[in-house]
C-alpha cells in the first residue's frame, strides 16, 4: 500500500516537473507576486500631492506651510489664488487634498483666538483619505504644540503619547509581507492540487486509476503528498525571503510556524482536491480554484480586519483556513508566539483538513458519469 501511494506521488511530481509550463507556474508567478506585494502593496503614503490656497498674508501661515513642505509625506503640486481653482484640481486627481488657510489666520493666532484651517480632501478612496487626514492632523498638532510653547500659551492639559507594540513604526510592510507567506502558499497549493484530479478526468486517466487496486484514500494520499511538499517548499522560501530580504523580524518559534504550515497545507490540499473532484475539466477546476480563492482572501483578514465585517460574514470566515494561518504567521513573526499561544488556531485547521479530505475521497467515487 505505501508503494502504491509512493508510485502515485512520484507520478504526480513527474507530471508537474516534466511540463515546462507547469514548472514555470510554480516558480514564476509566486516570485512576481512576492515582489509586487512586498514592494507595491503598502498602506503607507508618500508624496501626497496637495495644493495650497493661502489667503493669509501673515508669518504663521508660512510657518505652517513650511512644516508641510518639510515633510516627506507631502508634495506640493499647486499654489492657488482663487476659490474656483480648487474643484478642478480635486476632480482631475491632480491633488489629493487642498489646504485653505483663512485671511485672518496669523491675526487670530496672535489674538489667542481659534484659527481654523480647512482641508478639502478627495474621499473617493476612503482608506487613503483617512490616512492622509491623519498625517495632516499630526502636522497641525505638532504646529499647535510648537506655537503654544514659543508664544507662551502654556502647555495643553492632556497630552497623547502613543507607542505601537509589535510594530513600533507602524510599517505596513511588516503587516503585509507575513500575510504573503500565507497567501502564496495557498495559491500554489490550490493550483497544484485543484487541477490534478480534473486533469486526469479530462484525459480519461482517472478511470484507469480507479480500476487499479488503489483505494480512494490511497489516491487521496498520493495526490496530497506533492501538493503538501510543493506548498511547504514555497512557503519556506517566502518565509526566508520575508526575513532576510524584506527584513521583517521573526520573533516567535519556528516550530510553531512549521506545525501551523503543515496543518494549513493539509487543509488547503483538502480544499484543492475537493474542488478538483467536483470538476470534470481543468477549466472548471481552475475556475473553482479562483472562485474559492478570491473570497478566501477577502474574508481572511489579509487586508481588512475580520472584526470590521458584519456578523453574518464573520461566521463565514470560520470556515476559511487562511484566516487561522494568517494569525499563526503574524503571531510567529511579530508577536513571538509559540506552540501554546497558537493552539486555538491549530485545531480549526485540523478540522477543516479532516473534513475536506474526507469529502474529496468520497467525491472521487461518487462524481462519476
Amino acid at each position, binding site marked *: 500500500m505505501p508503494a502504491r501511494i509512493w508510485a502515485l506521488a512520484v507520478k504526480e511530481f513527474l507530471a508537474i516537473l516534466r*511540463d515546462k509550463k507547469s514548472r514555470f507556474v510554480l516558480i514564476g508567478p509566486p516570485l512576481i507576486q512576492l515582489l509586487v506585494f512586498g514592494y507595491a502593496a503598502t498602506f503607507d503614503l508618500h508624496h501626497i500631492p496637495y495644493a495650497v490656497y493661502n489667503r493669509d498674508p501673515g508669518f504663521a501661515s508660512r510657518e505652517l506651510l513650511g512644516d508641510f513642505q518639510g515633510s516627506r509625506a507631502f508634495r506640493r503640486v499647486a499654489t492657488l489664488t482663487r476659490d474656483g481653482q480648487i474643484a478642478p484640481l480635486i476632480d482631475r486627481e491632480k491633488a489629493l487634498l487642498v489646504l485653505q488657510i483663512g485671511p485672518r489666520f496669523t491675526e487670530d493666532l496672535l489674538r489667542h483666538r481659534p484659527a481654523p484651517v480647512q482641508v478639502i480632501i478627495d474621499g473617493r478612496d476612503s482608506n487613503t483619505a483617512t490616512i492622509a487626514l491623519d498625517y495632516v492632523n499630526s502636522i497641525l498638532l505638532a504646529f499647535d504644540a510648537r506655537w503654544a510653547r514659543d508664544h507662551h500659551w502654556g502647555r495643553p492639559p492632556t497630552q497623547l503619547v502613543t507607542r505601537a507594540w509589535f510594530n513600533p513604526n507602524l510599517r505596513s510592510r511588516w503587516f503585509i509581507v507575513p500575510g504573503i507567506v500565507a497567501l502564496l502558499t495557498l495559491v500554489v497549493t490550490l493550483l497544484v492540487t485543484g487541477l490534478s484530479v480534473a486533469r486526469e478526468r479530462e484525459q480519461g486517466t482517472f478511470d484507469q486509476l480507479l480500476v487499479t*487496486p488503489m483505494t480512494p484514500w490511497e489516491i487521496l494520499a498520493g495526490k496530497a503528498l506533492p501538493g503538501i511538499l510543493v506548498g511547504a517548499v514555497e512557503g519556506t522560501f517566502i518565509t526566508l525571503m520575508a526575513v532576510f530580504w524584506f527584513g521583517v523580524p521573526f520573533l516567535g518559534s519556528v516550530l510553531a510556524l512549521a506545525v501551523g504550515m503543515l496543518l494549513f497545507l493539509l487543509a488547503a490540499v483538502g480544499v484543492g482536491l475537493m474542488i478538483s473532484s467536483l470538476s470534470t475539466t481543468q477549466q472548471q477546476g481552475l475556475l473553482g480554484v479562483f472562485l474559492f480563492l478570491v473570497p478566501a482572501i477577502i474574508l481572511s483578514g489579509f487586508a481588512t480586519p475580520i472584526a470590521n465585517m458584519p456578523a453574518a460574514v464573520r461566521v463565514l470566515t470560520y470556515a476559511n483556513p487562511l484566516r487561522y494561518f494568517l494569525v499563526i504567521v503574524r503571531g510567529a513573526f511579530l508577536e513571538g508566539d509559540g506552540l501554546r499561544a497558537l493552539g486555538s488556531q491549530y485545531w480549526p485547521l485540523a478540522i477543516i483538513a479532516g473534513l475536506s479530505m474526507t469529502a474529496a475521497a468520497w467525491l472521487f467515487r461518487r462524481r462519476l*458519469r
Partner: protein
Amino acid sequence: MVAETTLTSPLRLEGVRKRFQRGKESVLALDGLDLDLAPGQVTGLLGPDGAGKTTLLRLAAGLLRPSEGRVFLFGREGGAEDKDLQVRIGYMPQRFGLYEDLTVQENLDLYSDLQGLDPEQARHRQDELLTLTALGPFGKRRAGALSGGMKQKLGLACALLRAPPLLLLDEPTVGVDPIARRELWEIVQGLRAAGTTVLMSTAYFDEAERCDSLVLLHQGRLLRQGSPERFTEPLRGRCYRVRHADERRRALRESLQQRPGVRDARIVADGVRVLTGPEPVTPEAGERWEPMPPTFEDAFVDLLGSGGAGSVATASAASPVSVGDAAAETVVEVKELRKCFGRYEAVKSSTFTVRRGEIFGLLGANGAGKTTTFRMLCGLLPPSGGSLRVAGVDMRRAGSTARARLGYVAQKFALYGNLSVDQNLAFFAAAYDLGGPARRAAMARAREEFQLAPYGAVNADDLPLGIKQRLALACALLHEPTILFLDEPTSGVDPLTRREFWQRINALAAQGVTVLITTHFMDEAEYCDRLVLMSRGAVLAQGSPTELRTLAQSPDRPDPSMEEAFIQLIEAHESPLRQAS
C-alpha cells in the same frame, strides 16, 4: 462555374514537400507529392497513420503552405489569401469546430455569417442542407447534445453552406456508427451527382471501394493512384475463403497465417479470408478453399504488408482455467442491469453472460449504452438496478484484490501524456502492486511483446496513435489480468494497426483471458465469439456472429454482411422511436 470545373483540375500538387518541426526533430510529412484530382469525382485518400493524409488536406485547404513545390487550386496558385479561391473550397477537419452550446440552427447561422452569405441566400441553403442531412427536426437542439453521427452531419452541413465545387473531408466517418456512416455516405453521393469534387480521407475499406478514384499514401509519398479496380485487379486469383470442418476460425486463422506463401489471413463471415503470394498454396486436409474476388483491403495489405509481421508473441497472461470450480465457466454475469442518469435511461434491463476465454463484443450505435455498461462492469459507475458479477464479485463493492484481476483500456487510450513510455509502464506496474523484480520483469516483457523499447524515453503524447494503443494495452496487461475490458480500442486507428491489435487479442483469448470489447467496426465483430447488439440502452440481440447475421436474413438479402445485419436490426428496432422523436 460547373463548366469551368470540368475543364481544369480542382486540385493539383507538384512536387510538394512539407516539413514540420517537432521538438528538435524535423519531420517530413509529405515527401515530393505529385497529385492531380479529376473534377466531379469522389476521391478516397488512404494510408496508415502518419502517411500525410491530414497534411495533404490542410495544404489543399490553404491552411498550410508547402515547404517546397506548388499547390494549384482550379488551375491557380492562390493559398489562403485568395478570397476568390477560398469560397470555392469546403473543408471539414477531423473534429469540426461546432459550437457545442449553440443550437443546430445557431451553428448554421453563425457559419453562414462567417462565410458572408446574405441572409436570404443563407436561409434557402440551410433549408436544403437540413433536408439533406435530415437534421431538420433537431434545429433547436444544442450541438453538444447531438450524437456523434449527427455532429458529423452538422459539421458537413456547415462546410457545405457555400455549395463549394471542391470539398475536402478529413475522416468524416471516424467514431460514427454504421447507420450514421451510411447517411453521411449518401450525402457525399448526392454531392457527386451535383458535380462537386470530393477528396476524403477514410479508414474504412468499404468506403474506399465506393469511391471513383483512390489515392494511397505511405510515408508522405504517393504509393498508387487510380480506380478501386486498378488496385484490386492484379490480385485476381490470389484471394480465397477458407473453411474447415472442425477447427474454429481463430485457430484456423493462426495456422493459415503461419503458412508459407500466405500473405494475409483474416477472419470474415463463415471462414477465413486468405491472400496468397503469386504462387498458389496447397490446401491442407479438411480445408475448403474457395476463390473470391479481390477487395481493396487485400490490395492495401498487399501493398503495405499486414502490420505486425504475422506473428505477435504474447506470453502466458493468465493461469489455465482452474478445473473443478463450477462457477469457473461463467466469468461475467449481468442480469437486468439498469442505469439511469436523472430521467434518462442509458441502460435498460440488459442481461448477458460471458464465459472464460471468450472474446465478447458489445456492438451498438452511438449512445446505445455500451460504454455505460462497461463502466458499470468495471465498478466505475453504480448500477440503478439489476445485478452484475465479474469473476464472481460485484465490482462496485469489490476490494482492491478483485480489481487487480481485471484490465481496462478506456476510450481514447488514457495515458499520462507528459510521462514517458517507461514512466507510464512503471507507474501502472506499481499501481498494480508489482514491486522489485516482478515489476522489472513485467516491464521488460511489455517492452518486448509490444515492441515499445525504441520509445522508452518518448512522452506518451508524442507517440503515433498506433503506438499509443499498444502502450495502453501494455499498461492494462502488466499485471496479467484474467479479464480484459476494451472500450473502442480501435477507433481512429489505421487498418494495419487494427489487424495487429486483433492478433494480440486472439493470442490473449487463446491463453484463457476473457476479453470484452466494444467497437464500431463491423468487420471486427467477426473476431468475437459472441456478441451483444445494443440499441438505446437495451439488448437487441445476442449470439455468435453467424446467429446475428441469420437474424437479419431476408428473401432479397440471403447472405447479409455484419454491417447490413447491424443496420437492419437497429433500424427495425429504432424506426418507430426515430419517428416518434
